[in-house]
């Protein structure tokens, strides 16, 4: 067993884990943050995307132990004082949701992009989101939602 400490959605937390526990399992099972979804479990679909020290990464390819000392943000950590993050609102307004399973991962991948690049081009959005699969529909509205959020945040 290992004891780890990290910052989760703005709060300092700690946990006892097995060496082989994955980050996604700790987040979902122990902290009950089930917004982070698991689909492929091997880094091919992006539905488990979280922010680790402001970088969008796959939580299914990360051991919980690797979160030691890091700042972790999940989809649940985006809302501030009852107000949705600009990306969450933009996904709603642009109709960029169908079944919703890929949405948390999409939004976290976009969040990582906008933290580093507040004014991305359509191509930069596509590149940042290329690791997130949606099986319901096309990607057009998702790209538009990210663009809309970026515009709103700048103005």
């Amino acid at each position, binding site marked *: 067993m290992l004891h780890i400490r990290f910052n989760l959605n703005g709060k300092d937390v700690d946990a006892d884990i*097995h060496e082989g526990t*994955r980050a996604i399992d700790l987040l979902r099972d122990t902290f009950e943050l089930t917004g982070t979804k698991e689909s492929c479990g091997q*880094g091919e679909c992006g539905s488990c995307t979280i922010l680790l020290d402001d970088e*969008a*990464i796959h939580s299914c390819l990360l*051991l919980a132990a690797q979160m030691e000392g890091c700042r972790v943000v999940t989809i649940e950590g985006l809302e501030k004082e009852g107000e949705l993050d600009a990306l969450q609102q933009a996904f709603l307004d642009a109709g960029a949701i169908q079944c919703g399973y890929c949405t948390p991962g999409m939004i976290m991948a976009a969040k990582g992009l906008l933290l580093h690049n507040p004014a991305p081009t359509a191509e930069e959005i596509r590149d*940042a989101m*290329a690791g997130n699969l949606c099986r319901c529909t096309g990607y057009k509205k998702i790209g538009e939602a990210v663009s809309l959020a970026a515009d709103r945040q700048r103005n």
Partner: protein
Amino acid sequence: MSQALDCLAADGEALPLAAGTDLVPVLRDRAMDRARLVDLHGLKELDYIRFEDGMLRIGAMATHQSIAASDKVKEMLPALAHACSQVGSAQIRRRATIGGNVCHASPAADTLPVLIAAEACAVTRSKEFRKTVLLEQFITGVKTTSLPQDSLLEEIIILIPEGGWKGNYYRLGGRNALTIAISSVAVLKGSRGIRAAYGSMGPTVKRIGAVEEYLNSCREAKRSILRVLAEQNLSPISDIRATREYRLDVAANFTWLGYRELAE
């Protein structure tokens, strides 16, 4: 570094963990609670890209993203920057390291055709020794290397010819992102002529001497001859992603394309 080497030497079953983007899914499918891992994430001293004494030196913990974005790499070995930009997705490139990609030794690894064509060397460290081996010899089979259990890959060294390595990396996947190469080829030109190395075309990524001799001596490369040389020297499998014949066609066509682009 010395602490990580102590841990590996003390526990004969411990595995080094770089980012874990290849290792974590494998562990999930086995009895992962018993895994003993030495996390290398703290080895910031191995996260570098330097140019010294005519050599490009890339630390084992340099990420695909940082290599893809590096002005030094783009100038001296642009094919490597391009290859690194083709790996997985942004989420993976941000964390996954060149050391992890090399030591995982997949026949489809995107960095290997370029590194092997450029005659890169792997520098390994144990508590007692520091060794330099040609990367083509470091990789011994499908996902196996000659790296002893008590050692770590420290860096990759590439000798840079005057004006840099010309040429590019070509890969075919089923789609743009998150796809394993069906066939990949690096066609590079240095001070001693053209080099060609092949990925996803056999158990290990390798150069083909016969192709290089042909490209360096012919007046104009013919696709039909490259196809025959591919057939004679490569051993791709047929699987769900592509047939053996299709992979050979693609490899020969990429070689021809690389040759043509070098000539332009």
